[in-house]
């Protein structure tokens, strides 16, 4: 055995700093949506208990687009986890492909959301329903864009050779934030689109 093999592995960089920070930011993002969603549910309950219809006349919220977005985002969770596993095995080729696919799926979700907005025929000035729905879904869209920037940043850093099996916190942190945003969408999908 050569002497190089006898040397102990270098100590890991102090772990989890980026993971811990990302977990807190993800929690903060979730709470921003949860706060608005609480107001949405309370207002909708008031409307329904008074015998009124929640959505204003003429407005509609189709289900096909939200369902497609839900499936797209679930696929993106799989590709994101694929990237984490790939970088953990030093398989850079697969990691690049998985990160790229995640970004494509994220972009597809953004496109579908904007298409959905045009289909809903809901005017933001029609009352509190429009304000609530556009604020909540818009805020989630903004967070999804932030998550995409995070993933893209980490993808470029991976392309620069920064991450490897022993140090993949950046990709894992991006995956954590991404997964949190998908979890938030699943709540919105049920609360706003399914139980409308």
């Amino acid at each position, binding site marked *: 055995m050569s002497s190089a093999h006898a040397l102990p592995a270098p100590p890991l960089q102090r772990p989890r700093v980026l993971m*811990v920070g990302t977990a807190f930011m993800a929690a903060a993002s979730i709470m921003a949506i949860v706060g608005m969603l609480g107001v949405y549910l309370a207002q909708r309950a008031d409307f329904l208990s008074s015998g009124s219809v929640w959505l204003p006349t003429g407005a509609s919220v189709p289900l096909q687009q939200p369902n497609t977005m839900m499936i797209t985002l679930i696929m993106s969770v799989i590709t994101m986890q694929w990237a984490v596993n790939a970088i953990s095995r030093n398989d850079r080729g697969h990691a690049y492909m998985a990160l790229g696919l995640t970004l494509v799926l994220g972009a597809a979700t953004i496109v579908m959301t904007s298409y959905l907005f045009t289909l809903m025929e809901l005017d933001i000035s029609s009352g509190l329903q429009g304000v609530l729905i556009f604020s909540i879904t818009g805020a989630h869209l903004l967070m999804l864009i932030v998550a995409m920037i995070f993933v893209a940043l980490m993808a470029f850093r991976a392309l620069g050779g920064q991450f490897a099996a022993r140090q993949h916190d950046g990709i894992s942190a991006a995956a954590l934030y991404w997964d949190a945003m998908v979890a938030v969408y699943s709540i919105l999908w049920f609360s706003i689109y399914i139980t409308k």
Partner: protein
Amino acid sequence: MVRSDVCRPECGCSNEVPSNMALTDTRTESGTEATEAAHSAVPAPVSLLGSGDHKALGLVYVVAALLFGAVGWIISALIGAHSLGSGTFLSESTADGFLSGSRIGLVLLVGVPVMLGLATYIVPLQVGANTVAFPRAAAAALWTWVLSGGLLIVANAIDGGLDGGRERAVDLGLLAIAGLCVALVLGAVCVITTAIALRTPGMRLDRVPLFTWAFIVGGSVWVLTLPILLGNVVLIYVDHHYGAGTSFGSAGSQWAQVSWIASQPQVYALLIPVLGLVADVIATIAGVRQPNRNVLLVGIGAFGVLSIGAWAQTAFYPEARNEPLWAGMVLLIVLPTLAVAGGVGAVLRSGKPPIKSPFLLSIVALLFVLLAVLVGALAVLTPLELRDSSAFNTGQFAAVLAAVIAGAAAGVTYWAPKMTGRIGTDAPAKLNVLVILGGGALASLPLLVLGFSSRFTVLADAGDALEVVAILGDGLLALGVILTLLTLLAATRGTPAGEDPWGTGQSLEWACASPPPLANFGELPAIVSPQPLLDAADSSKGA
């Protein structure tokens, strides 16, 4: 452990964040970026703008928050003057804008950031870290906060802010509040991450100093609740700017939607770091190890859990204050407060602390915490009709803010030699003890008494007299924050301080030079107890 072993004053690094460093990066802990650049306590303004040094960032937070505090309490006094007699001192929209602006301002421009500033400076030192986590993000948070704070004041000055009269200025105020929320959350995340992930070897989470523990708890509560305030502000802004402005954005209803941030139980979140700070200062000045330390850790944690009040939004949930959960939180929070007070009492019994100004200011802060929490518990008693009393709620808010400013003054006085490297005259701090004690009492007690006027109508006749006394109290609190700044200024002109100017330091911030060099520490030995410097002193005596 010998203190000089852990102190590496020669380990100065560049004051700039490395240009190849991303927002998500944290400076390496080895201090290998050392340069010969001299380090001073207060960096030059230009280099300050590009600095990621947690000491510089913390100082800017503290100084700016205290300056904002002086403005905030002067505006509070103006609102008090307006409410005298027929209430024609200010126009209706200006009075509404000032009221909401001063409340929001005292929370987001003073209460949260002054503690965040102290934590940004001190927490990395207390846990033996060489830097704050994500220094570039921490700097971005600071400057976003400063900019947003300035915009909020400008918006309020031109009849904007919540419920203000000028449409575009209201929008500006809303954007400023949103910026403040984002900045404070980001800043808090950086410090909490430092305390959780960058602790020196051997410093388990139950061995961190109580101020650090209290900030982990308090910062986490802010990180979980300030985004909810942000959500409220987004709804108001979207309706006001893009919508019809008839629901969330309608004038007169905006402040009500966010008033939960300044009402119990959420307002108690401002007090969480104060509890840890008070316990740390008193134990250090007394020169004894904190007895029953685990009780304090649990107590501060329980206080944090019981101060999560974002769910009690009476604008959308009018029955919130009649819920058993609300009554339970308001009542139960007394218990952890008494536990912390009992811990302080145990220190006072086991040691004879010298009468120094940080000790006195800490006692004043603890008294106001007790006042706010005990009086708040009275609101549970329905026959007293306190829950919806504006005067009572204003008085309790004043007591909470008095506790925060007394705690901040105690922290600034206590850590000023560390921050400046010098010990100045104690005169401003000693005068400050009387000013903040008097100011807090005058600003809160008359309004708390006035809160009983709906039950005891005879008190209503004395309403104006009690309001005048409260205005005087607001003025004294404005003077108190100025005296706190003078304490810091006086320290810069004092005699040089050593590593441990109080001579009884327990935690690691007293093991590095005053002021600390940029990388704070060199290699630290493993920590084996919550009071590593007392361990070092004991082993020196044993040897």
